[in-house]
């Protein structure tokens, strides 16, 4: 019983600690994400009509971007729907 209570308290404290860590980096991560979007757009820009860098550089980098491509696809789909996300990130109220 007492072990259960101690572990619940531990879980709660670690939850609080996690939230606080995240509070300290969430906006920075958001801004970093926007910079990554620009970087990905530079590499994958030919899809949207932006001139691509030399083919050999793209070819070399593409395998490293499998995960990013998935995200890129999601973001392209959500790119017109960012008002609510910005409100959430900035925490206006």
């Amino acid at each position, binding site marked *: 019983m007492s072990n259960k209570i101690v572990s619940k308290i531990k879980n709660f404290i670690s939850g609080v600690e996690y939230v*606080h860590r995240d509070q300290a980096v969430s906006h920075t991560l958001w801004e970093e994400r926007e910079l990554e979007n620009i970087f990905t757009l530079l590499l994958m820009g030919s899809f949207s009509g932006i001139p691509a860098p030399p083919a050999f550089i793209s070819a070399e980098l593409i395998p490293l971007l499998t995960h990013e491509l998935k995200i890129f696809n999601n973001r392209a789909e959500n790119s017109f729907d960012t008002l609510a*996300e910005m409100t959430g990130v900035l*925490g206006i109220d």
Partner: protein
Amino acid sequence: MTTLIVVVGIVVYITLYLTYGKKLEKEFVKADDNIKTPAVRFDDGVDYIPSKAPVLFGHHFASIAGAAPIIGPVLAMAWGWVPALLWVWFGNIFIGAVHDYLSLMASVRYDGKSIQFVASDLITKRTGRLFYWLVFFLLILVIAAFGAVVNGMFVGTPEIPTAYIMKIAAALILGVLIYRVKMNFTLATIIGIILLGLSIWGGSMLPIVASKGTWYIIIFFYIIIASAIPVNVLLQPRDYLNSWLLYLGLIVGAIAAVFSFQGFTAPAFTSFAPIVSGGKATPFWPAIVLIIACGSLSGFHSLVASGTTSKQLEKESDGLKIGYGSMLTEGFLSTLVVVSVAGFGLELMVGKGMDITTSNWGTNYTSSMMGSYPKAAMFTGSYAAMVASTWLKFIPTKIVQIIAGMWVASFAMTTLDTTNRLGRYTFAEILSPLKDKNEGVYNFFTNRWIASLVPAVIGIYLAWSGNFTILWPSFGTANQLIASIALLTGVSWITKRQKTKGTFALIPAYLLWITVTAAIIWFSAVVLPGTIMSNPVTGITVLVIEVIMLIMNIIFIIDFLKHKDDPLDA
């Protein structure tokens, strides 16, 4: 009485969470853990991340809790503590929390899309577009209302600006320690909290006295600069320090309210229409929705819930704790505000030499706060007196007052510059049809600095020239209008997608729409003419915004009623 109300509040919230909330979850939302949430389906470790319920609760609550759930209930005390408390509880449990929960869950079932997107799909595309305009107006009015709050606090309690300026320095140092020096996070946090403590102490030692105009100019430049610099320099570390202030303030306040055992000295009820907005008799219905916003319901929450929270919900069954539970917690914060003002406000105002008694409370309460004793100071003073009446009295009252003041000022200032950031974006979106027609004009107005200036100039001008009792309800109209649209969107989702009758949500949704519409009409027809006479530019600007919003509101309800029984494509 303070203790009794807080305990009753906790019991009411827990009971209704377990009954009404659970009923909503089972019968209308039909939360099902077998359905994978977008956070699980699209888990990419960046945008979509499944988060544990307590963690997501912390995030969501920190995003929705600010200065508004404090200021609104302080003003609503003009009706007496019973109406203020009843609206906080009733609005919170049956409208605000339902609104937040439905927005969250509708978004979850829409792959994490925003409530704006859901409205476009379920009602009309036009409804989705209305959101941008409403949000833009709301942002301008937020700058005006919160600018006035901050200014009142800086002028009224000169220790707070010093503490705030020192806190900005502390945030800049913390930012360097965490992101540049890459210091151990716990150590940097300890240093940050020590610096925060020092800024509070420094504020009590070195008050800065300046005029209202001087502070408005400083606030204006501050929000332009703060909204344009990279987030990791100021916004991020400052918000991190704010979250400590929020939890510290809530915990100390809850302990003090439970142990203060103080009788209420404020009247339980003054009259149906005391003097609140613009020096006019203000009827409880419909005007209460314009006065108490976030403590009972807020349209911004639908955007937060459907913007980031829905992309992190791990299980559908967590939605009730986060969407409904966070809003109830915010209502509890407003309950603490009502309790502290009801228990200690009268003594405090009499102590300041104001002409106020229980019998003239309805006529003199609001005007007293608009004079030498600003509304936020009413909360900070009552809060400090409440803490001093318990075993926590070993903390000096002045320090508690500065902590409470910093709590309100920090959140209000954060709101100002983050609002300006969002205003810049919304303004650019609104102007996007110009892009093809006149690229030069579009490029000029969407320039980072110009787009920052537009909401800041209008907002600060309104704050500087206007009366707070006009600006606060104006902010309330825009906020509650968005809440009304979001709630009706939630109802559409329940009836169209969930195939249930949705009476539980439909009645509060209609009630809210009718109340908000009546409130806008009352505000525009009764209060604003007086403002136009005394202050034409401010009065006309606010009136134009109100009329446009009213027209949009009517367009919206026509669209809603026209399309509510339309079959869905898929």
